[in-house]
């Protein structure tokens, strides 16, 4: 990367310099063609970030068009900072999920912290107050020496940033798998609340209107974060890229939230854009591009953290906690007064011009003069080759007769409850303030978080999900299951899914096998979202998630938002009363492939993912919602990793009070391990007052949904009898202890 120079002479643009900027020869020629001359060094830097994979979506854009993005509630689909979905009564939710994978691997604390900061700004840029954060984290195997350091650092980063800004972190998921040893995933989700008539967009309208810089001073951090760090895979030189990781200041972010929300109340604010990836450059080009205008600004006015910064550095800095506002002419001083009240830096740095160009002066010289559309839309839409990977034919085959059926289930249950992917994540979420602002109705530890909408009787349910093992075995079906399961989590909490955002984490798109995985996963999300009628309103693509040629499992993480018209109709996953009956909605098939059970007991990741019958899934979800809203049931819990047995134990032990025991009496011709630990889809475990069983069964028949009463809550043990024979019998408190402590004990060890 070019070093800063005190002298004013810009480095020459040579083929080497072009290559260092991550641009191909073909791309460079295209730049020259589009602007009709050779770019100078600073301009080359601008193209380098704006045409990077991270900013331009050049490999992924054609595929993303497959996603259903419209619906009666959708006020803003993909393309803006975040999606906006109407929740009625003049209110809307604004949400998006975004990755910060590579920075978090190199510098876990700052990488994760700034991931949280960035996604929050995407939300309040739209005029919304952020009310909830979630995250989806994927680390390597616990035996990898780096995992403990990364886990501690990432959780610490999220905790320190989110807590300080006063936005609660209310849920998420954490997975561990060796495929993430060299490339962890940190996907951060934020949801905000806005009045539908107060939604702000990234616009720079009105010639002559001033452009105002708001927030932290610009420093030399994060230069080329988007182009060099996010848009290439890891190798031996990765550590050298640490200076491309930004440094977060959550205190400034908190002030920025309050300042922006105060500014948004004024009718003289025209538009606003967060300076995220590619900083001042992308925000100015995007704002002008969205409005058919141009922007002219003077870098000498930009508040700087240090002396001697070049135009190149100022334009490409990814210093955090900065925004660009356009306000009506004549209101500059009012805007600056609000900044002053909150103690933030700010300055008028330029103005909107008629000609569709961005013109930048620095120290009395014009340093950049570029037409907008080549920069914003000029990147090639790459038609990268794709081919079905070889590995699939090997891994998709699983012969169940090779797997010895265990005589009892105790050992497997204990192993599963103590497996990092299933055990309690309490050590993590206790470090997050998940209660601040008093809206969290269902705290972390249930299928979905439920947030009340302040000053209303409504609530929203939030969940994030992806089983990447399924996606590795079959990306098309794995992605569909991610959508179905995430929606099921919402339904188990009492919500109707109203929108989805996705974070598509994949390996190097230059490899045909990776592009095939990507295409299949996008098609899977598209198919499931169309079927379940859940619009995709925002998202993010993260490619190059691989190290030394080894890619992660395809990980299309989805987050679904659900609406509860009446917040009293929220439901949680844990059993409430001794004596209640336990029922299972849905059908269990003889499926072991791709399961956590197969991984833990046989150390295999093999077979096809469980079948997904979308019609059945929809019936199951609708029936569950009917039961919750009719107050028929006390609890509802999705059967997922670890199957029915783990779901039942979780319902026993995850409540805020003492653990409750349970007995299941099952009749089945299936393999016992498949029955208890298989991960058949479209199943929900419920509990209800015993007298209601017959009515519920009748309703199930009417809805044509498979349903069986399978047991009863109570006692101090967890017992499972199959066809009259005892298969599992354990003290529930002992099971709870195994489940509860693993992650914390692991994280606290000094290695």
């Amino acid at each position: 990367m070019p070093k800063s120079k005190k002298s004013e002479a810009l480095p020459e643009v040579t083929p080497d310099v072009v290559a260092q900027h991550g641009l191909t020869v073909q791309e460079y020629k295209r730049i020259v063609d589009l602007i009709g001359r050779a770019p100078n060094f600073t301009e080359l830097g601008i193209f380098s970030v704006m045409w990077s994979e991270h900013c331009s979506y050049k490999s992924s854009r054609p595929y993303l068009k497959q996603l259903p993005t419209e619906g009666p509630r959708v006020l803003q689909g993909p393309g803006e900072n975040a999606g906006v979905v109407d929740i009625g009564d003049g209110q809307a939710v604004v949400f998006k999920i975004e990755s910060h994978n590579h920075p978090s691997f190199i510098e876990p604390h700052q990488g994760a912290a700034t991931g949280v900061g960035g996604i929050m700004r995407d939300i309040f840029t739209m005029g919304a107050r952020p009310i909830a954060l979630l995250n989806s984290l994927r680390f390597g195997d616990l035996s990898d020496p780096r995992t403990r350091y990364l886990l501690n650092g990432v959780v610490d980063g999220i905790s320190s940033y989110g807590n300080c800004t006063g936005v609660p972190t209310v849920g998420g998921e954490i997975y561990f798998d060796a495929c993430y040893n060299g490339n962890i995933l940190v996907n951060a989700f934020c949801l905000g609340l806005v009045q539908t008539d107060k939604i702000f967009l990234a616009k720079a309208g009105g010639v002559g209107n001033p452009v105002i810089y708001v927030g932290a001073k610009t420093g030399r951090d994060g230069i080329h974060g988007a182009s060099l760090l996010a848009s290439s895979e890891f190798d031996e030189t990765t550590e050298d890229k640490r200076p491309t990781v930004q440094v977060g200041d959550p205190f400034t972010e908190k002030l920025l939230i309050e300042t922006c929300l105060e500014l948004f109340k004024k009718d003289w604010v025209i538009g606003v854009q967060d300076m995220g990836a590619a900083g001042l450059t992308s925000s100015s080009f995007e704002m002008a591009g969205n409005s058919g205008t141009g922007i002219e600004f003077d870098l000498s006015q930009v508040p700087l953290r240090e002396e001697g910064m070049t135009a190149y550095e100022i334009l490409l800095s990814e210093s955090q906690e900065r925004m660009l506002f356009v306000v009506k002419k004549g209101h500059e001083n009012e805007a600056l007064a609000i900044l002053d009240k909150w103690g933030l830096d700010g300055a008028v740095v330029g103005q909107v011009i008629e000609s569709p160009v961005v013109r930048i002066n620095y120290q009395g010289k014009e340093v950049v003069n570029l037409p907008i559309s080549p920069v914003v839309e000029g990147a090639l839409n790459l038609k990268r080759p794709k081919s079905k990977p070889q590995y699939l034919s090997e891994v998709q085959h699983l012969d169940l007769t090779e797997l010895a059926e265990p005589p009892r289930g105790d050992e497997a249950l204990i192993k599963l409850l103590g497996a990092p992917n299933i055990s309690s994540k309490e050590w993590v979420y206790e470090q997050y303030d998940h209660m601040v602002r008093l809206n969290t109705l269902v705290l972390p530890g249930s299928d979905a978080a439920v947030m009340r909408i302040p000053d209303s009787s409504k609530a929203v349910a939030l969940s994030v999900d992806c089983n990447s093992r399924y996606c590795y075995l079959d990306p098309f079906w794995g992605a569909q299951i991610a959508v179905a399961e995430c929606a099921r989590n919402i339904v188990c909490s009492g919500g109707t899914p109203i929108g989805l955002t996705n974070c598509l984490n994949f390996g190097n798109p230059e490899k045909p096998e990776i592009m095939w995985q990507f295409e299949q996963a996008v098609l899977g999300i598209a198919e499931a979202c169309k079927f379940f009628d859940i619009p995709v309103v925002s998202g993010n693509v993260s490619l190059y998630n691989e190290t030394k040629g080894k890619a992660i499992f395809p990980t299309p993480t989805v987050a679904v938002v659900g609406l509860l018209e009446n917040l009293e109709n929220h439901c949680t996953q844990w059993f409430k009363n001794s004596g209640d009956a336990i029922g299972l909605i849905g059908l269990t098939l003889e499926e072991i492939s791709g399961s956590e059970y197969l991984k833990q007991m046989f150390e295999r990741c093999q077979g096809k993912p469980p079948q997904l019958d979308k019609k059945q899934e929809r019936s199951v979800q609708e029936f569950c919602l009917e039961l919750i809203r009719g107050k028929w049931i006390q609890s509802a819990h999705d059967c997922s990793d670890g199957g029915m047995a783990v779901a039942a134990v979780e319902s026993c032990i995850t409540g805020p009070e003492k653990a409750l025991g349970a007995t299941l009496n099952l009749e089945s011709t299936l393999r016992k391990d498949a029955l208890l630990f298989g991960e058949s889809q479209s199943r929900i475990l419920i509990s209800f007052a015993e007298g209601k069983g017959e009515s519920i069964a009748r309703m199930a028949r009417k809805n044509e949904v498979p349903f069986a009463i399978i047991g009863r809550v109570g006692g101090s043990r967890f017992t499972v009898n199959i066809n009259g024979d005892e298969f599992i019998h354990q003290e529930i408190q002992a099971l709870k202890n195994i489940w509860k402590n693993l992650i914390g004990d692991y994280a606290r060890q000094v290695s």
Partner: protein
Amino acid sequence: MKCGVVVFPGSNCDHDCYHILKHIFELDTEWVWHKDSADLDAFDFVVLPGGFSYGDYLRAGAISRFSPVMKAVVRYAQKGGKVLGICNGFQILVESGLLPGALMQNRWQKFICKPVFTRVESTDTPFTSLCRERPILRIPIAHHGGRYFAQEDTLKAMQDNQQIVLKYCEPGGTVSEASNPNGSMDNIAGVANEKKNVFGMMPHPERSADPLWPDQDGQLIFKSLIQSF
């Protein structure tokens, strides 16, 4: 009755305190801006809310104690005005010398957010007088620096004067090492000044005071305060 909620840059439980006082207890509640050093005499009591004032940079509360509003808070407290500091508010009261002792980083150096049980050790304060019948409170904590410390002689004086008001305990009320979430000396969760008109506590009573939630033990703190007039 009129009360004030102080807003420092970085306060983030200010809205929660305001909500409880204004909407649940229906008090005449006003914001007090940190740059304002005017007298607070018009208020019946003042709340310093939780959060990360000044980002907790340097040390929690260490910068806020120099803000103009704290000059007014100190004058107000010296005249007998009632001041409740919650979490970061408690840290600021300690830093500004209105309460004895210090609050250090938690034993595990991690932020902790969870409901805990506390036992009311002294009901002879305007903040806890209604806890006589119900001395064990379940109230959430959410902090990184709540490990209370005081010199031996200070602690002794506090004990003699019943200034140790809240201690972390087990659900049944036993004060034990296992129930101490952050390593606080003597399990101390909340302390008062000598005159008992200034009280700081690490748990967040405003987080268990809204009837929407099953836990409402935090109401007792606010109700005691309101009834003390």
